[in-house]
Each structure stands twice: as structure tokens, then as C-alpha cells.
């Protein structure tokens, strides 16, 4: 699973450069199955914390709420805005991308 993820990350390096060059604070790519950080522009402790809190708790909760309200519905992405910055979370099948801006 991790091999696949690394390939995907490799192919998207251009995209990642673009994302980090624009008005973003940083990004985290995490693996869904293991909950571990695959790539990040932050230091590891921060990234782990983000993954654990955001991806683990919030995304799961939102997904179940969405499905509860309409079983055919599915979460596409999530934007959580706070005073300082905004988290953009995009869950996929294999992994989750989180960008802070």
C-alpha cells in the first residue's frame, strides 16, 4: 500500500510544488489504512497531530453524518475555517490530503 502511495506522491510533485508556492501554510498527505503520515511540509510532530485529530476524528465523523442524512451521499471534501487559517481536507480511497492556508 505504501509503495502505491509513494508512486502517487512522486507523480504529483509538480502539483505539490505549486500548492506550497501559493498562499498555503503547508500540507500533509496521510495513508488511510495505517493513519501514518506519507508526506508533509511540516515537522513530524505537528503533522502527526494534524493527521490524528483532523483525519482520524473529524473526517470520520463528518462522513458518517453525511451518510446518515442520505445513504447515497458521500463526502467529497471538507473545509474547516478557523481564525488563523483554513484546513482543506480531501479524503480519497487510499489516502487523505490536508492543506492549510
Amino acid at each position, binding site marked *: 500500500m505504501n509503495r502505491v502511495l509513494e508512486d502517487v506522491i512522486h507523480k504529483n510533485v509538480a502539483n505539490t510544488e505549486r500548492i506550497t508556492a501559493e498562499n498555503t501554510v503547508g500540507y500533509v498527505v496521510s495513508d488511510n489504512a495505517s493513519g501514518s503520515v506519507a508526506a508533509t511540509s511540516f515537522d513530524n510532530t505537528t503533522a502527526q*497531530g*494534524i493527521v490524528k*485529530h*483532523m483525519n482520524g*476524528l*473529524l473526517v470520520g*465523523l*463528518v462522513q458518517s*453524518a*453525511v451518510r*446518515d*442524512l*442520505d445513504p*447515497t*451521499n*458521500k*463526502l*467529497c*471534501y*471538507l*473545509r*474547516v*475555517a*478557523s*481564525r*488563523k487559517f483554513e484546513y482543506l481536507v480531501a479524503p480519497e480511497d487510499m489516502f487523505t490530503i490536508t492543506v492549510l492556508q
Partner: protein
Amino acid sequence: MSAEVEEMLKRFSTMKNIVGIVVVDYDGIAIKSTLDNTMSVHYAAHMQLLTEKARQVILDLDATNEFTSMRIRTTYFEIILVPLEHYFIVVLQNPCD
């Protein structure tokens, strides 16, 4: 408070993409809604849970930060959740694309 709510609802009724609005107070009771009752109560319950969790998550990640709003984009529509001081507002809208 309800004067502001009325004014907001009036403003929203002119916007085309809006499917529904639910205003929920802190007890989780939908006080105003443009959807039918069962759906409103359903949304109110879920959104209350989500706001609490989201607030905790933001606070955990950075104690000086504060949760201001959340947008949940699903396949059919987009849910915008805004917590205010006495209540919170849930707006369902059709995304433009």
C-alpha cells in the same frame, strides 16, 4: 435575535443555489428552518455534534485558534455550518458546478 434571523432568511431566499436553511440553538433544537420537520431535526442533531467536535479539534491543534466555520462538500450539495454565539446556522446549497 429572531429579527436578525428573519433578516438573514429573507436574504437567503433570494439566492438561487440555496436548498435549505436550518437555524439551531444550543440545545440542538431547530428553531427556524426551510426544510421539513424530520429533515431539520436530523440535520440539527448531526450538525450540533459536528460543531462540537470541530471546535475541539481546532482547539487541540492550536490553543489560540478558534473554529469559525466549516464547509462540507458532498456529491449532491454543500453544507455550510457556521457557529455563532447563541446558535448556529446550517445552510444547504447546490454547488455551482
